[in-house]
């Protein structure tokens, strides 16, 4: 039972099951995220982490289980409906507006968050509120200098930053980041660390991350998944010492560290 004095969780997942053709990708996954919490999910490839994200944002429908966000069940809501409630995600593989500039990429997400997408006359790109969001997010993800570069001409690292930037520009209450540092060189990981540390504490985050140093730096708590199941949950310090975690995973991350 939860401590009644603690604030209610921003996100609660109960018994989430998903299978493709008889193969379980997630199995009875449950977790609760406190407001402002930064949760890192660890696990080997194929553990079901990205599938969990897809279930959370609605790109997949679970076979069983329930998702509650801000006290409201959202299991049956569509992707855009969940996004409007305040869930945003970034993708492991870049999923950007390739033919547009970085500014336009951020502006589209900002316009969506402001609900300024329906007018047939007014141009949301001239909306000062939107411009403020774009400028702020650009600073948060270190893209201010190259806002008018087209995405297809931007470097891979910049695209990874933009990947997070689009999610941020959607002004989420809950940010899901799927391996933000995937594929970037070791030199840039420190930058991502700074970027995440600098994000407002009020923003709740779930991060799938393979870089252990970054994970332990950022995380308030860590969830470890294996073969579709949550096998461990605890503070970063406990994680290194947990026997199960060591057994399935540690060898791998020692290599990283």
């Amino acid at each position: 039972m939860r401590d009644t004095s603690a604030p209610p969780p921003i996100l609660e997942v109960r018994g989430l099951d998903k299978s493709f053709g008889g193969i379980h990708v997630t199995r009875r996954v449950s977790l609760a995220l406190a407001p402002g919490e930064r949760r890192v999910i660890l696990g080997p490839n194929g553990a079901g982490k990205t599938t969990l994200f897809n279930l959370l944002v609605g790109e997949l429908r679970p076979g069983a289980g329930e998702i509650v966000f801000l006290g409201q069940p959202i299991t049956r809501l569509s992707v855009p409906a969940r996004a409007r409630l305040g869930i945003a995600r970034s993708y492991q593989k870049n999923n950007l507006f390739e033919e547009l500039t970085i500014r336009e990429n951020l502006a589209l997400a900002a316009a969506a968050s402001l609900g300024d997408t329906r007018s047939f006359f007014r141009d949301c790109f001239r909306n000062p509120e939107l411009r403020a969001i774009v400028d702020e997010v650009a600073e948060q993800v270190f893209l201010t200098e190259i806002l008018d570069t087209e995405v297809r001409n931007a470097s891979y690292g910049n695209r990874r930053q933009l990947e997070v930037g689009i999610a941020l520009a959607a002004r989420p209450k809950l940010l899901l980041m799927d391996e933000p540092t995937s594929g970037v060189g070791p030199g840039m990981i420190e930058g991502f660390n700074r970027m995440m540390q600098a994000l407002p504490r009020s923003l709740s985050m779930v991060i799938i991350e393979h870089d252990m140093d970054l994970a332990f730096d950022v995380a308030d708590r860590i969830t470890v998944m294996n073969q579709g199941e949550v096998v461990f949950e605890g503070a970063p310090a406990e994680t290194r010492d947990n026997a199960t975690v060591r057994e399935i995973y540690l060898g791998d991350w020692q290599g990283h560290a």
Partner: protein
Amino acid sequence: MFRQTPIRTGAGIALIAGLAIHASRGGYFDREIVIEIAILAMLAISLDIVAGFGRMISLCHGAIFGLAAYGYGTAIVKFGLPPSTGLVIGIALAIAFGALVGAICAGTVGIFYIMATLAFGQIAYVLIFESRWLGGDDGMTGVRRMDLSLIGLNMRDSLTFALVCLAVLVLVYIAAAVVLRSSFGRTLSGIHANEARMRAVGINTRMHKTAAFAFSAALAGIAGVLKAQHTMFVSPELLFWTLSGEVLIIVILGGIGTLIGPAIGATLLVLLKHEVSHYTVYWHVVVGAVLILAVLAGGRGLFGEFEYRLARWRARRRARRGTGGAADA
């Protein structure tokens, strides 16, 4: 993302001015050609909105166009309503059909979208073709033009009609440009660039695409109503899928996603067809070859290619100037 660049404005003004001069100085047939160009250009612009800015390759814009023409004609011929009411009915019919098809097809993509719109367009065609009440394949005669004598326009005069069509073309272009530059249009361009990501940031893309299709249908409807007034006659060919294909060709030849390109493409195709048919009855082979070459050349179309080269030239010049340290004017 749509930008009304000075180049586009200039090209648009030059095109309209050229057509207007051609109409006023040329003979009767030149005016007919200008009218045909103007109406096809409207239809092509309307198709470019969905195809070039929303990734919805429609093969039913001919059907929308034809339905509006029939709506206008039926209101006048069968119900004896005044042409102004016919205008409203025609455009409303186009919007209703567009919204319906747009909503149903919004979930499909790529070749499936093309096929689905083709199917709905053909259903409309077959129903009209087989309706004896609407005259079946013989079509419907007795469609009057609007009476604009109150504002001093004699619509039966071919020059006046041609100039009215050009004016409407300008309005259609402006409407399209305004909407594409609006919040709605920006979001549509976002869907064009990456529909999944737009959903992920909270856009109900199905509704958005449906609304865009309905807006495009409204413009196609305006073109259809003008077509009915131009020929003063409607027949089922207006709805046949090959017209939709022809409009798609126009959009591609002119430059998809450039908005002014399709208007240029309409001019090009109509002139090409008329020039070629002076020399041979086998104009299909010429149009087909031009289309194939246009796609093989990169598919940017005439105006798109021009903009592309201009942009590259400017970038190179900027780079040269940059290294040379000279200040840009």
